[in-house]
């Protein structure tokens, strides 16, 4: 049996098909989920993909956060369903308060697209266990609103609890506090990050690296082991 991983399409989602492809390449079964459906089709995990849901109008992720699918997702995530938010998905997760803090416009005020170096700080979450702690990887980054912000107390807590999962290395592309690229909730089942692992799964396209594949093999192994 393989794992079934849902990918939510919001209006304006862009990387939903790419994420499905990455899930397939990792050996799991992608399941398309629709923002207007509360039904999660009994998937084993969910990815909120990148894009500009609702045009990123108001604030990135702010309108999607009130989608019917999110009502169910918020409950189930709190109950332990593995959820990965990539870029816009990360923004939805912070707006939904499944992850602390907030995302703001890049400090340089431009969209930025680059091959970004990251350090894996926590290799124990549902989505990072196929990495090793301290490992440095390159994952494409592309966003307008990638600046992670939280108050000092929250940041200290995240650091203390090992909940900073990925950190920017060599270059902070957006002014994120403490170079934070991705974080997790206390239980480790909900992870959000700005860079796009689904665009680093094939040697021929994108940056030509496959450093993103372990995201999807991490969750697959965990789910198959649990079943």
């Amino acid at each position, binding site marked *: 049996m393989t794992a079934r991983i849902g990918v939510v399409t919001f*209006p304006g989602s862009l990387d939903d098909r790419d994420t499905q492809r990455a899930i397939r390449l990792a050996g799991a079964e992608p399941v398309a989920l629709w923002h*207007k459906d509360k039904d999660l089709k009994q998937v084993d995990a969910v990815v909120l993909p990148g894009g500009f849901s609702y045009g990123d109008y108001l604030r990135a992720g702010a309108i999607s956060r009130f989608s019917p699918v999110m009502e169910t997702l918020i409950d189930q995530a709190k109950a332990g369903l593995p959820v990965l938010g990539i870029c816009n998905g990360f923004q939805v997760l912070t707006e939904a308060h499944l992850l602390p803090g907030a995302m703001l416009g890049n400090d340089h005020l431009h969209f930025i697209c680059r091959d970004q170096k990251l350090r894996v700080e926590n290799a124990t979450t549902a989505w990072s266990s196929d990495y090793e702690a301290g490992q440095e990887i390159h994952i494409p980054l*592309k966003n307008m609103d990638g600046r992670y912000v939280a108050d000092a107390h929250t940041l200290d807590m995240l650091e203390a609890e090992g909940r900073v999962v990925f950190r920017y290395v060599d270059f902070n592309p957006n002014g994120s506090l403490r170079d934070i690229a991705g974080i997790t909730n206390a239980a480790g089942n909900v992870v959000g990050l700005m860079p796009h692992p689904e665009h680093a799964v*094939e040697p021929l*396209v994108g940056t030509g690296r496959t450093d993103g594949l372990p995201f999807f093999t991490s969750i697959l192994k965990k789910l198959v082991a649990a079943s």
Partner: protein
Amino acid sequence: MSLDTVDNAAQTPDVELPWAELGLKKDEYARVVEILGRRPTGAELAMYSVMWSEHCSYKSSKVHLRQFGEKAPQSDAMLVGIGENAGVVDVGQGYAVTFKVESHNHPSYVEPYQGAATGVGGIVRDIIAMGARPVAVVDPLRFGAADHPDTKRVLPGVVAGIGGYGNCLGLPNIGGEVVFDACYQGNPLVNAGAIGVMRHEDIHLAKASGAGNKVIMYGARTGGDGIGGASILASETFDEAKPSKRPAVQVGDPFQEKLLIECTLEAFAEKLVVGIQDLGAAGISCATSELASNGSGGMRVELDDVPLRDSTLSPEEILMSESQERMCAVVEPEKVDRFLEICEKWDVIATVIGEVTDGDRLEIFWHGEKIVDVDPRTVAHDGPVYERPYARPEWQDALQADDAGKLPRPATSDELKAQVLALVSSPNQASKKWITSQYDHFVQGNTVLAQPEDSGMIRIDEETGLGVAIATDGNGRFAKLDPYTGAQLALAEAYRNVATTGAKPLAISDCLNFGSPEDPAVMWQFAEAIRGLADGCLQLGTPVTGGNVSLYNQTGEAAIHPTPVVAVLGVIDDVARRTPVAFREEGQLLYLLGDTREEFGGSAWSQVVHDHLGGLPPQVDLERERLLGAILISASRDGMIDAAHDLSDGGLVQAVVESALLGDKGARLVVPDGLDAFTFLFSESAGRAVVAVPRSEELRFTDMCGARGLPVTRIGVVDGDAVEVQGEFALPLAELREAHENTIPALLA
């Protein structure tokens, strides 16, 4: 005055309409009256005036554009040619590709962000209207002098607008150009191109057939956007009380357009659509008259059913509105419900606004009264055609006589070195990363090559690796020196760029940016450029699938350089075989393909070092381009080369520096026998490329070139961490990188 109906027009032949204010000439208005056999209604006048404008009717350019058809090369690849929203090309394995380039020059000067954004929106709707999923965009751009204060206003806004719209649509930006020249100061050129992919059977056309079929408008509500003359009609002549303030600038809503893409593709997939047309320039006037005239039968439209953003709009204004993000589909009655359901699923407003009729008239109603009754062909296709006078300008001879070959050349190695640094750090030759990093290259997960590669490349089939490549090029300096040759050089360069990456060039699209057609000198440049392009396409076997003409790019008496921009589309059977620009391995041998002559007219060197424009542009030899292309494609397919870069602006040294910096590997060059170092480094002779050959492939590669008669010269080796020209100078990569990459940020950040 109340509503101007068709009956009313017939009964009041003497009412004066403001045709001049709407941009019609006296004889054009007389022609409308003759066609209708009566005076037009206000609504009819609105339609004729926009559809017969230069922008929509191509009245100055049509007689010249015909050559693209007349001289079209035999090509099995062409599935849909000039005349539709975009041409369609067969790329094999049952796939078809549609692509086109359009200009949004003037709006981008007035409001850079929105002007450029809506330019992307417009070209993408043309692609959707053919039945294709858009897969990539490109953006050839030209601005005034890099250090001019207004460039700091225009460029960042344009780039943010192209990125803002394209990124939000989920379209990777895979190519384009950025050129600075004082001639574009008040007339930046913002051209935008898009590519779409579909299966052959999914090709859709803009035609309304089948009496009883419904006409559905969907997408954004109609507002008062971009209504020039119609407001005059509405407010001054017909209803004094109305506000005549209508926005001249349109604001784009990329999110709405993304929904349009998805909902249109879903309707196509369920085979719900008989005919389809996007709404761009001239809005409903254009969509209804083109749909009706291209199909069989007529059309009846209830204008009251058009969803409005501004309830005060008059029928004339509704007909002319250029509100963005709207489409029009023709759907069989029994499929209408399903079509509307799909629109609702995607939160897209959709309304039946009319139907296809038995007759051959386009009839439009407002409040139950008939306000338009025309033969749609006369609106859409029978616009005026001008044979504008043209004449070779008297200054052309003096310009060509001002030979760049006579400019002082560097006298010492130090001077040579300084000029190399000046070249690679000059705004036109410097890295454009500051700009291109504002564009998403990765979305859709199929980008094989993107900036700064010679061409952008997209995988279109995951199983087989089938891919397409596109490159856009244009050199206004060359075209100014000789428009015929300049247009061919643009074609040759784009063709070469595509072949350099390993793809076989199939077809082209173009965007022809010129000054005022009312100036005989400009008209001559235009005629010459088209003649050159058509002759070149015939010779290269690449048909013109469509394009766009932008005239009146002119401030007062001063026209821009004639700037034909050419986009070449190519196909590659397996993207795994693509050839990138970057040097990959030390020890690989560098070969120069083609002939190097003393050609400096219009060159980057003459501009950067001497601020000079004169002489003749490089010669064109299209047979040589074909041969070079064939060799590059074979070498890529058979794995004989690991890197390749075409030689164009800045010559060999520019190409080698770029490949070295991208791969972070240096190069040691030796000046070949028979050439001086200066000519070797800076000449811009066409038909050349530099390739990196693994030692194991050296013999096979040089034998192939020899056997096919392509000059091949060994010029050095990939090595070290500098670009060194033996006996002359060595420039460390770090120094080159700083020179190459810091210029644009320093100017714009």
